[in-house]
C-alpha cells in the first residue's frame, strides 16, 4: 500500500501543472485512440485476409495473393505469422501490427514495401511447414531466413519468384489510374448527330491536313 501511495505521488505532477497535464494526456490518448481507430489496428487480432486490406497499401498484395493457388489454401497469417506457438504468434502479430499502423498513419511507407528479415524467417518457416513432405529429402528443409542471408541455401521464393505475390510488386502495382476509354457503344450516326467525331476515341495518331 505504501509503495502504491509513493508511486501515486511520484507520477502526480506538481500542483500548478495538473490541469495542463491532464489536458495534454487527454490529447495524446485521443490521438492514440484516433490512430488506432483510423488504422483499424484492432482488427489485427484476427486472421482474416480481409483485415489486411483495411489499408489500401495492402491491396496489391491482397490482389496477387487472391489470384494465385495460395489464395485458395493459405491465408496471409498462415505465411506471415508464426504458427508454432501462441506466444510468438501474438508477439509478432502485435509488434508488426503496431508498426504497420504507425507507418501507415504517418505515411512513411515506401513505394516498394519489402519484407524485413524477421518476416522473411517467419514466411520461410511456414513454407516448409506446409510443404515439408515435398522438401523433406533435399537440403532445403534446413534453410532459414537468417541462414539464407548468409548464403546458407536459397529461400523458397528465390526460385519460386512469382509465389504468391507475383514478381512485379509495388504500392502501385495494380494501377487503376488511367482507364482507357473504350469505343462508344452508341451507333456512329447518333454520335455524329450529337456532334461527336466518329471513331475519335480509338485513334492513337493525330492526322494533319496535307
Amino acid at each position: 500500500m505504501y509503495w502504491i501511495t509513493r508511486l501515486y505521488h511520484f507520477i502526480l505532477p506538481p500542483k500548478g501543472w495538473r490541469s495542463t497535464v491532464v489536458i495534454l494526456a487527454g490529447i495524446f490518448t485521443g490521438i492514440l485512440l484516433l490512430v488506432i481507430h483510423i488504422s483499424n489496428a484492432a482488427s489485427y487480432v484476427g486472421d482474416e485476409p480481409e483485415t489486411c486490406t483495411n489499408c489500401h497499401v495492402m491491396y496489391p498484395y491482397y490482389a496477387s495473393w487472391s489470384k494465385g493457388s495460395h489464395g485458395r489454401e493459405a491465408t496471409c497469417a498462415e505465411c506471415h505469422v508464426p504458427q508454432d506457438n501462441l506466444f510468438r504468434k501474438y508477439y509478432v502479430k502485435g509488434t508488426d501490427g503496431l508498426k504497420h499502423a504507425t507507418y501507415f498513419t504517418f505515411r512513411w511507407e515506401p513505394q516498394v514495401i519489402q519484407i524485413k528479415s524477421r518476416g522473411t524467417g517467419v514466411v520461410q518457416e511456414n513454407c516448409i511447414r506446409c510443404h515439408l513432405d515435398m522438401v523433406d529429402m533435399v537440403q532445403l528443409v534446413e534453410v532459414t531466413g537468417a541462414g539464407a542471408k548468409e548464403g546458407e541455401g536459397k529461400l523458397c521464393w528465390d526460385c519460386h519468384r512469382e509465389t504468391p505475390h507475383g514478381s512485379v510488386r509495388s504500392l502501385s502495382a495494380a494501377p487503376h489510374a488511367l482507364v482507357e476509354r473504350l469505343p462508344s457503344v452508341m451507333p456512329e450516326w447518333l454520335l455524329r448527330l450529337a456532334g461527336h467525331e466518329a471513331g475519335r476515341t480509338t485513334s492513337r495518331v493525330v492526322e494533319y491536313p496535307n
Partner: protein
Amino acid sequence: ERRSEAQLYFQMVSPIPEWEPDNEVWGNNFPRQYERYLKTLDTTFASKYYGSVMIDYLEKYPELVVMWAGYAFSRDYNQGRGHYYSVTDVWNTLRTAVPQPATCWTCKSTDVPRIMNEVGVAGFYNQTWAGMGPNIQHPIGCQDCHDPETMNLRITRPALKEAFARQGIDINDATRQEMRSLVCAQCHVEYYFAEDNYLMFPWDKGFTADAMERYKDSIDHVDWVHALSRTPMLKAQHPDYELYKTGIHAQRDVSCADCHMPYMREGGIKFTDHHLVSPLNKVEKSCMVCHREDEEALVSRVYEQQDRVSELRRIAEKNLARAHIEAKHAWEAGATEEEMAPIQQLIRHSQWRWDWVAAANAMGFHSPSEALRVLATSIQKSQEASLKMTSIFRKYNVDYPIEMPDLSTKEKAQAFIGLDMEQVNKEKAEWKQNVLPQWLSQN
C-alpha cells in the same frame, strides 16, 4: 452510358483546347503530373555517365571533334538535359549557327503539332529553322504525348506513324503497353532528312544497326563529307528506342515509361511520375518494383555494364580518329579515289556503328550485349581500314606509322581540324543579343 463513370477521374477543371501548347493550362487540370513535370528543370542529378547535368561531350571525348571534322557536331555536342530545356538548348547550341531546316524543331516543342495542323506536315518541314523560330515558344510537354480530351496517349509526330505504315503496320493497333514506349519513339530514335528536309526514320530494312546501315547504303544517303578522310559519312542520332528493342527489358515488355516514369503514390492516388530523368535518380520506384535487390546492387550492375561499353567505346573512338587522320595523309600522298573507296566504306560503317551506340543514351544499358557486339564490329572495321591504308602508304612512300596530333583537349582537337571557335562563339553571342529577343517577344 455506364462507361462514363470511368472517366470521372478525368473531369477537368477547365477543358483543354485541341493543340494547346501551354503546359500550365494542362497543369491546371492535372497538378500532380504538372508539378513533377516541372522537376525536369532541375539539373543537379548526376550519375556515373549521365544525369541532368550538362556534360560537354567534346571536352570529355576530344577524338569526337576529329571524327566530325567538317560537320557542325565538331563545334558543340552535349549530353541531353530535361525536357524543359528542349527549346533553350536548341537556341544555345552552336550547331544552329549553320543554316538548318525547320525539321530541327520537330522534336522540341508542343507548338509543333499546332503548326503542322495549320501548314501541313511537308509545309512545316520545308521552312527554315530561323524562319520557324519565332513560332516555337514552348518546350516539350503534355501536348506531345496526350490527347487533350481523353488524356489518352497519342502520337503527334507523323514520322513515326509513317515509318510503321511503310512496314504495313497501323500504329493505331498499338497496345497500351506499346504506347508507353511509342510516345518516346516519336523523338528518341534515329532519323534522317530526306528530300525537302522531310523527316524520316530509316527502318525499312529493320531496326538493327546492321539493317539501318544497309538501308542507308541502299539509298546512298550521306549526312556530310568528312573534311579529313573525305568519306561520305553517316551520323547516328539517339537510337534509344531501336537499341532498347534488342534488349531483355523490351523482350519482357518493359516499356520506357516503366523505368523512366514509374507510378508513384501520393495519399491514395496513384499517378505517373512525369519527372523524366535517369532512373538512377529513383531506383526505388523504378527498378525495385521488379528487382528485389537493394539499390546499391542494382546501381552497381548498371555501372558494370556501362563500364564495359565505355571501354569498347573508347577503343573505337581512338581507332576512328586515327583512321580519319591516316586517310588525310593518304589523300595528300596521292591516293586515288579507287584506292580509297573500300577504305572509306569501312570508315563509314565503323563510325556509323560506333555512333549508333554512343549516340544512344544510357551507355548501352538499354541492351548491353547488342551495344557491345555493334561496338566490336566498329573496332574491327576501323582497324581493317587502317590495315588497308598501310598498302597505300607503302605505295606512295609515306612514313608509317603516321604521327598523331595531340588530341588531349577539345580546344586542341578543334584547332587541329582548323575550326575558328572564337568566330563561331562570337556569331552566336551576337545572334543571342540581336535575334533571339525578337523571337521571344513574338508571343
